[in-house]
């Protein structure tokens, strides 16, 4: 395909000054009489990115609105999928199409969140679609092959999209397939630049599964391949590569008019024994759910306007709530009050318990919360798999080459609506003798913004480029003569880039995200 704009740009770049042209010649092109290039070393924290053990760019997407789905394609050609790259997106004859029922060749298994795509399998005996109880998890397993692909969205105001593959031997999703093991999983961008490869698994104590990959996905196409080894007895039987393309994109068919969430200073209000109640807010992509534990009389008021009818009044638990665009419900723990982002006016609200007259001098108990609009942020982390950071240098691998420390990033709504970065150890991945001593958050000029190890007190990073350094300690072998253990401090580092999603250029109605499948040809 002719790229006229590219040629124009190419020609423009061809006019750069002579000294820069010469300066950028590599040795084999410099000819006689041209001085060699002075080697430029990268900056301190980038140096780890340029060490021999390679770079993986980990992108973390945390958007207030995310819709999940799953796409999964298995490719049992046995010939292997990249490294090397057999997929050339956007090239002739291999156009990536979304919403396309898949596939007509290459034994690819694909699932779509919308159910439009159905599995097609050739070498696998059967395929099971699994779906989580929440309806948000979608996976497919080629039984006997022992893997599940997931796109999952989590609850709460921030709904990251996650892709993972896991060994299904210990899950409830599928039949046990003891002879099959996932031995490697890799993730590539659509230029087939490898973003991450993992050859060891970490234990997910929550899912009781071997989790090879769990990462945030930013909007775009991702190519994920994984290798499955089938063993019978002690003999190696076969090794197959599977792959799928995940297309994380904005969707227009699910309209959210605003990016809203709710916050409150407290989730429990006590007022005079025995009158108390507990209220809990849960924010989701569509709206917020308010749960209260006492099915009695309530009054909901918009504090900004003072209006009652406009926002809904709960006089009794059996009255239909005139709630903002809510399905008729009332505020009970089993029937939470729903605030739809499409129609609920942002502002401060008060839910007052009116079931019992307060004692003299007391007020009715109430629960305040606020619905507000905010921006959506994207957090990208660069490094060798920040989700499971490995050693800064090859020779100081943390735990025999197996990643054992999870570093968790999150963007949460804070008082100023800015993203928050937190680093913490993964509960399921600790081993005896290792610990994170501290972590440091730098700004792009390496000014220290935070230093410590308060995992539960994440740092508000804001927008920009940041560097995170983690200082850890690993206990080594026992030294009988000294009656002590060997050990040493290790450093891990990575770069974070936090920026407003779409740089403000996205229309408000283009959220949330969806996940779709594309064919692998």
């Amino acid at each position, binding site marked *: 395909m002719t790229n006229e704009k590219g040629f124009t740009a190419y020609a423009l770049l061809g006019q750069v000054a002579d000294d*820069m042209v010469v300066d950028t010649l590599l040795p084999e092109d410099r000819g006689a009489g041209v001085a060699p290039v002075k080697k430029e070393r990268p900056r301190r924290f980038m140096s780890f990115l340029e060490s021999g053990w390679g770079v*993986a760019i980990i992108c973390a997407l945390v958007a207030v609105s995310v819709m999940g789905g799953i796409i999964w394609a298995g490719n049992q050609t046995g010939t292997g999928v990249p490294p090397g790259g057999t997929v050339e997106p956007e090239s002739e004859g291999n156009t990536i199409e979304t919403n396309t029922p898949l596939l007509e060749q290459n034994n690819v298994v694909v699932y779509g969140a919308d159910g439009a795509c159905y599995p097609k399998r050739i070498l696998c005996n059967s395929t099971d679609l699994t779906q989580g109880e929440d309806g948000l998890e979608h996976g497919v397993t080629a039984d006997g092959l022992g893997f599940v692909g997931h796109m999952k969205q989590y609850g709460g105001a921030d709904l990251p999209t996650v892709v993972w593959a896991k060994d299904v031997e210990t899950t409830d999703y599928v039949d046990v397939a003891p002879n099959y093991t996932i031995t490697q999983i890799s993730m590539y961008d659509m230029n087939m630049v490898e973003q991450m490869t993992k050859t060891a698994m970490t234990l997910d104590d929550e899912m009781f599964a071997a989790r090879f990959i769990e990462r945030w996905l930013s909007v775009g196409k991702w190519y994920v391949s994984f290798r499955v080894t089938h063993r019978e007895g002690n003999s190696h039987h076969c090794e197959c590569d599977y792959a799928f393309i995940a297309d994380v994109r904005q969707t227009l068919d699910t309209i959210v008019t605003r990016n809203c969430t709710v916050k409150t200073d407290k989730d429990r209000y006590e007022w005079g024994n025995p009158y108390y109640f507990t209220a809990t807010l849960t924010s989701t992509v569509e709206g917020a759910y308010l749960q209260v534990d006492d099915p009695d009389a309530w009054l909901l008021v918009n504090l900004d306007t003072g209006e009652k009818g406009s926002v809904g009044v709960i006089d009794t638990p059996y009255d239909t709530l005139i709630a903002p665009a809510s399905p008729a419900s009332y505020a009970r723990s089993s029937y939470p009050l729903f605030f739809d982002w499409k129609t609920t006016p942002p502002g401060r609200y008060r839910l007052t318990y009116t079931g019992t007259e307060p004692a003299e001098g007391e007020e009715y108990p109430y629960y305040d919360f606020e619905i507000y609009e905010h921006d959506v942020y994207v957090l990208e982390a660069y490094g060798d798999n920040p989700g499971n950071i490995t050693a800064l240098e090859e020779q100081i691998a943390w735990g025999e080459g197996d990643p054992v420390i999870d570093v968790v990033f999150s963007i949460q709504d804070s008082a100023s609506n800015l993203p928050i970065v937190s680093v913490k150890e993964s509960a399921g991945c600790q081993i005896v003798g290792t610990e994170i001593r501290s972590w440091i958050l730098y700004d792009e000029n390496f000014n220290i913004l935070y230093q410590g190890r308060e995992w539960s007190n994440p740092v508000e990073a804001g927008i920009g480029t940041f560097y995170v350094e983690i200082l850890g300690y690993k206990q080594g072998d026992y030294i009988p003569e000294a009656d002590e253990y060997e050990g040493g401090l290790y450093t891990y580092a990575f770069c974070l880039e936090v920026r407003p999603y779409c740089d403000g250029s996205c229309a408000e109605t283009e959220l949330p995200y969806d996940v779709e499948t594309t064919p692998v040809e």
Partner: protein
Amino acid sequence: MTDQEIINLYFARDEQAIAETDRQYGTTCMRTAMRILDSRSDAEECVNDTYLKAWNSIPPERPNVLVAFLCRITRNLAVTRYRAAHRHKRNKDLELSLNELSECIPAAEEDGTLRYLIDSFLRTSDTLDRRLFLGRYFHNYTVRRMATAYGLTENAVSLRLFKMREKLRTYLEKEGYTV
């Protein structure tokens, strides 16, 4: 022989200038052409054309840096040849470069301003980033080759290139261009 001495041969209309140019920078020109054309015969023709164009240009031109002058000619000739033949044989690496460049440099009417801005941007950029950027988009070095040359991983090179493109795009947009 120094560049100046070679240029003096051109000015003296001494055909030895071509031989000296070839001896000194023949490989450079050949490699430059090969990275675009991916065909040895086409590249050889391109290099010969480069010498002819240099012969016709010097004098009156007196290049400050002969190798840069030759690279520029070779590059332009190779791209022209590539454009004429690309329907039959595509250089995917070059296509990728063109696509990436089109994302950060506008196809605007050029009165010298854009060239100046790009020059300024590159000159004020981090040295390593500039070398990677021009290595990729001027000299058409592969990411792998640059990774080896600069002691980086391929991913690190790709990341830096990506960020440079983003910065250049932002820079030009701030200057009023629509990329």
